[in-house]
């Protein structure tokens, strides 16, 4: 028996991260020098004392599966509990892919009931934040709630991008709208729910029986519970939280790590973010390298110039190369004299000598076309080739070519 277990929705294809998620589930996208996105919710679980986590996934799970493995890096290899990747499956009476977030949980009721939990935390696989779920659970219990939703205040002009709640002075939710055109409040759902399992089970079964439902938490389960008069509480979260579902937000969140004024601290020993280790030796900085305001990890070799950038394991930056405001994912090789600016360079990309990837907004005549350039995994950007800002490169760029 477990008091509380977590179910992590990692299903989405992450199509807005296109070039990065061609062969990779979104939660497995590298983040912050040595992590993957999923390390954040997983580490939060472990640090909050939740030792049983189901990961719901149906899209390109191979690398995610391999990454999670037996869960040992997160101390989640347990005799009873631990971390389990839960793909859809066939039963004697038929088979289905997960139809929506609620259906994904519905299809895994058997898994949940193995642990007879009183509470279930529902998490997303594409948010970067540090949160102690045990405090939220205490709040949930104190409120006697059927469901507690973590919320944060967002600027009013952005509110229409979120699920928006209205809550009374006791933090009881009185209204919930998914992406409202005329938001009534700026309390946005962070996609982190705690449910009393008995209640959730009941609403999941009802929802499954409704042929018109989209089987989605935000669109169906939450509104139904609210309509039925269940106690729904809003739990205020104050720290750093970011949805990294777009290229721009993924880039920004990485840059936030380099900003001492942003409260996202991965160096805090009291709330470690765990990840699977690369096994490489310490990184090497050459005699002519120049580095500032950057993060660099094991196995890198830097002979060039690095400003405001995040380098993942095993990245090589040749002499005279310039890396600015960029993210170089594991195994990327930037040859001597290449320039990478405002870019995300995915795993095992090679950027040949003299190539230019991305550029600074201040160097653009027309800034409206500016954006972060993305090079997909395994791509080669040829000798003296040019990848323009906002480009999403999914095929090799030939020597001397320009890619938009």
């Amino acid at each position, binding site marked *: 028996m477990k008091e509380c277990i977590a179910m992590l929705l990692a299903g989405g294809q992450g199509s807005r991260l296109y070039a990065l998620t061609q062969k990779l589930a979104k939660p497995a996208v590298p983040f912050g020098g040595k992590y993957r996105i999923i390390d954040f919710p997983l580490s939060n679980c472990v640090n909050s004392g939740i030792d049983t986590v189901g990961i719901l996934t149906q899209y390109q799970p191979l690398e995610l599966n391999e990454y999670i493995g037996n869960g040992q890096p997160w101390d989640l290899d347990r005799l009873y509990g631990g971390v389990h990747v839960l793909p859809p499956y066939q039963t004697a009476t038929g088979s289905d892919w997960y139809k929506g977030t609620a259906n994904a949980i519905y299809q895994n009721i058997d898994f949940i009931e193995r642990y007879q939990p009183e509470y279930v935390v529902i998490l997303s696989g594409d948010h970067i934040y540090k949160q102690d779920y045990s405090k939220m659970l205490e709040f949930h219990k104190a409120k006697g709630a059927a469901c507690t939703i973590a919320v944060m205040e967002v600027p009013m002009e952005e509110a229409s991008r979120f699920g928006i709640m209205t809550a009374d002075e006791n933090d009881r939710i009185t209204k919930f709208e998914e992406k409202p055109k005329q938001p009534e409040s700026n309390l946005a759902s962070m996609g982190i729910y705690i449910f009393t399992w008995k209640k959730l089970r009941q609403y999941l079964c009802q929802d499954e029986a409704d042929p018109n439902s989209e089987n989605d938490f935000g669109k169906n389960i939450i509104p139904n519970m609210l309509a039925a008069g269940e106690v729904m509480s809003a739990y205020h979260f104050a720290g750093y939280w970011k949805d990294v579902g777009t290229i721009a937000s993924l880039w920004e969140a990485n840059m936030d790590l380099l900003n001492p004024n942003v409260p996202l601290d991965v160096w805090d020993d009291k709330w470690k973010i765990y990840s699977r280790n690369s096994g490489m030796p*310490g990184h090497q900085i050459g005699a*002519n390298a120049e580095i500032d*305001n950057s*993060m660099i990890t094991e196995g890198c070799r830097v002979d060039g110039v690095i400003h405001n950038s995040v380098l993942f394991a095993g990245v090589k930056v040749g002499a005279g190369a310039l890396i600015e405001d960029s993210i170089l994912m594991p195994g990327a090789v930037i040859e001597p004299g290449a320039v990478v600016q405002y870019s995300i360079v995915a795993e095992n990309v090679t950027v040949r000598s003299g190539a230019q990837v991305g550029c600074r907004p201040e160097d653009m005549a027309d800034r409206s076309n500016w954006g972060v350039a993305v090079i997909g995994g395994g791509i080669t950007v040829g000798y003296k080739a040019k990848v323009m800002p906002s480009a999403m490169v999914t095929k090799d760029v030939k020597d001397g070519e320009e890619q938009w």
Partner: protein
Amino acid sequence: MVSTNANALGIIFPNCYEDLLPEMTCERTMASVPFGSRYRMIDFVLSSMSNCGISNISVLVKKNYHSLMDHLGAGREWDLSRKHGGLNIVPPFYEENVKVYGGRVEALASIVNFLSIQKEKYVIMSDANLAVNVDFSSFIERHVESGADVTMYYQSIPIPESIHNHNHTLKVENGRVVELLTNDNRPGIQNLSMNIYIMERETLIQMIRDANIRNLTSFERDILSRNLALLNVQGIQYTGYVARICDMKSYYDENMKLLKPENLAALFGGKNTIYTKIRDDAPTRYAMDCRIKNSMVADGCIIEGDVENSILFRGVRVKKGAKVRNCVLMQDTVVEEGADVEYVVTDKRVKITADKQLNGTDTFPVYVAKAHTV
């Protein structure tokens, strides 16, 4: 067997040669001496064994092994947490009447019962004072092909002065060891033993039992060298990269050598990873105005000052205005604002307080002991 599982078990002597590095081994074994930015000395031979499919390894500890046990844990990082075999740390008083041992033979005597019920045909023995990435598969192969009783690796190098009283050298004729000297101090290139041996398990058991009856204690002097006429002992020259720790100076030099990319590639390149205990540090953070040149840096450091020609282990902090040149700074060393250190080796958790200056020389690096505040 289909797989690359080797038909050999491993034995490691983690306390050997500690007397050469007394500063660093008064609270740890030679095997747990930190090396190369994030490793301990034992990681090299242990990873080499594991990578070659040797998955039944006994570490015969003698004293001061708390840090080694903490480092090795259940052996998971080396893939040695197995149902059968795996990593086996053998402390003193493990069996009735087994005392803290003196020589290698006594240490082996404490596991002779264990050895006699193992299944592997061969035994590979090694100390932990060399950082090497050995291909034990080819070592086993060459031993089997030659039909030798014992095969050992040697380096052809001048004997480091600090081990003139602590070495074995070989005279080799057509591959066979015809003479094995102890404490050789001849100048020039000699065949210096690496103390890495392979033989049949049954052969070793027989040797230990014989030696025990005769009260012999040195494997090299009493067993091998006296019996070179009877035993076919083969010597193989090892030509791979070797970092040999003989004293503080060589400890410093061998760390520094890794700043050369070709040396780093020779030790860590190739298909075999060197595993070590995971600390779950964040990546290293270089602050806005830092300066770093020609250095090797592990994860978890925060560099705000000026670092040059140095090796930084995990979790080192170099604060604003601090200068670190030609140094080896072990785990969690803190160099505070404005401090200036050159030719210094700091042990774990050393703190150099603000504005202090500490200088050694290239021939005499200054060592600061564990957790000291300067």
